[in-house]
């Protein structure tokens, strides 16, 4: 099933997964926070600013996924026009390099969304505590950043 050309296919699947899964997570997270924020703002329009920041937080995972996908394509020469001939081993390496941000991004974005929803409710009750609400949600970001770091280290470790 896997010929010599399939290395490149595996790498492309990895790039697609990084963007897809992390993007799905971010869409769920940002979407849920947006609904909660809309509820709060409909009763109290002054809360728009602080709830908007909270809504944006789970969006970063999608960007990290895009970054990893982009870097994979760059390394295998999809960007620039001359694709490198990859062995199956190299293909799998790129595939696995994409997984930390793909799965880590998906799950951390959903949980960051949940934390940000709670933050929106906190802002609804106490506008002056919006900074704390943001910090709670940012804590979840740590794990998305760690996943991104690992993905980048792995994909630059592959020799082509």
């Amino acid at each position: 099933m896997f010929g010599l050309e399939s290395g490149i296919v595996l790498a492309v699947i990895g790039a697609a997964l990084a963007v897809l899964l992390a993007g799905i997570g971010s869409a769920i997270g940002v979407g849920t926070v947006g609904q909660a924020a809309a509820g709060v703002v409909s009763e109290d329009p002054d809360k728009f600013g602080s709830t908007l920041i909270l809504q944006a937080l789970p969006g970063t995972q999608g960007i990290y996924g895009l970054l990893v996908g982009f870097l994979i394509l760059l390394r295998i020469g999809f960007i620039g026009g001359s694709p490198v001939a990859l062995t199956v081993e190299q293909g799998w390496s790129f595939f696995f390099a994409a997984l930390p941000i793909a799965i880590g991004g998906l799950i951390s974005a959903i949980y960051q969304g949940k934390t940000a929803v709670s933050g929106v409710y906190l802002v609804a009750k106490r506008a002056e505590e919006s900074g704390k609400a943001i910090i709670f949600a940012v804590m979840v970001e740590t794990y998305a950043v760690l996943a991104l770091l690992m993905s980048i280290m792995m994909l630059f470790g592959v020799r082509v």
Partner: protein
Amino acid sequence: MLNVDRYAYAVGRIKVMETRLLDRDRIERMVEAKSAEEALKVLSESEYSDYLAELADVHEYEKILSAELLRIYRELRLLSPEEKIIAFFARKYDYHNLKVLFKAAHLKEQRPELLLPGLGNIPLEELVRAVSENDFRNLPLRMQEAAQKLVAKFAEDGFDPQLVDLWLDQALYAELADDVRKRKNKYLRDYFTSLVDLTNIKTFLRVRRLQRSKNFLAAVLLPGGSLDLLTMLDLSDPLEVILDRLASTPYAQVVAEGVQLFQQTDTLTRYEKLADNFLLERVRQAKYVTLGPEPVIGYLLAKENEIKIIRIVLTGKINRLPVEEIRERLRDVYV
């Protein structure tokens, strides 16, 4: 998450609406006001302010309360992703209306001010038509059965207003219990079973005081609770034994404290207050839920509690009760 995230918008609105509930300070100011008029003025900085302008006399305060209740039910029906959640709590008003209509039809005295139009799930016109034409086909099953049974019974033995209350309450709670079973929501189930259990314990104490029979007790206990009082307790048991038997239930403290005053003064007001506070504590658990129907239910019950508190304070003020006595009757607040 996707399943409950449709509640995100509703809960967001609820969280802001909760900040407008009357807090302890505001209620304390009402209690300490010199007159009923002054107590009412405290409400002018709250959600009730709109109605105050139209109020000619303090004695008409019920108008404010029912207008606010109506507003809350309308708003929550629109806001909640599942209207059924609100319909569950509105059902008691359908049964209330039906009771009033039954009594009005048979006692030949019209008391339209007792009816609550717009609150329940069934249009008032439909209930009026059903009672006047003796045709209950369009009503929910449990209500229909109870109404038909009542009509048949009255045709045989004459009218009995007590029976109207009794059978319709049984039907209401049976209907609610069916719904709780179907919904599988732990929060709603916990609230409902506690409500039924506490009401049944109160009923038990009353029946025992009136020295009625066990058959009578079996007929008045409501369905849907977690305690089987009929087998747990006996009407001839001394109070100590009753307290002892209930000691392992979650209501031990409520009963123990509530019954103390019952023995001395023969009133259950203290028990009722403690029971309401116990239920409110259950209701408060909604604060720890971010996505789901719980905060919506919690807000609805908080609002009903608030209206009850205002009623207690204003009736106390109008009847010139001492501040201490009003405070003694007050319930906790949700916020």
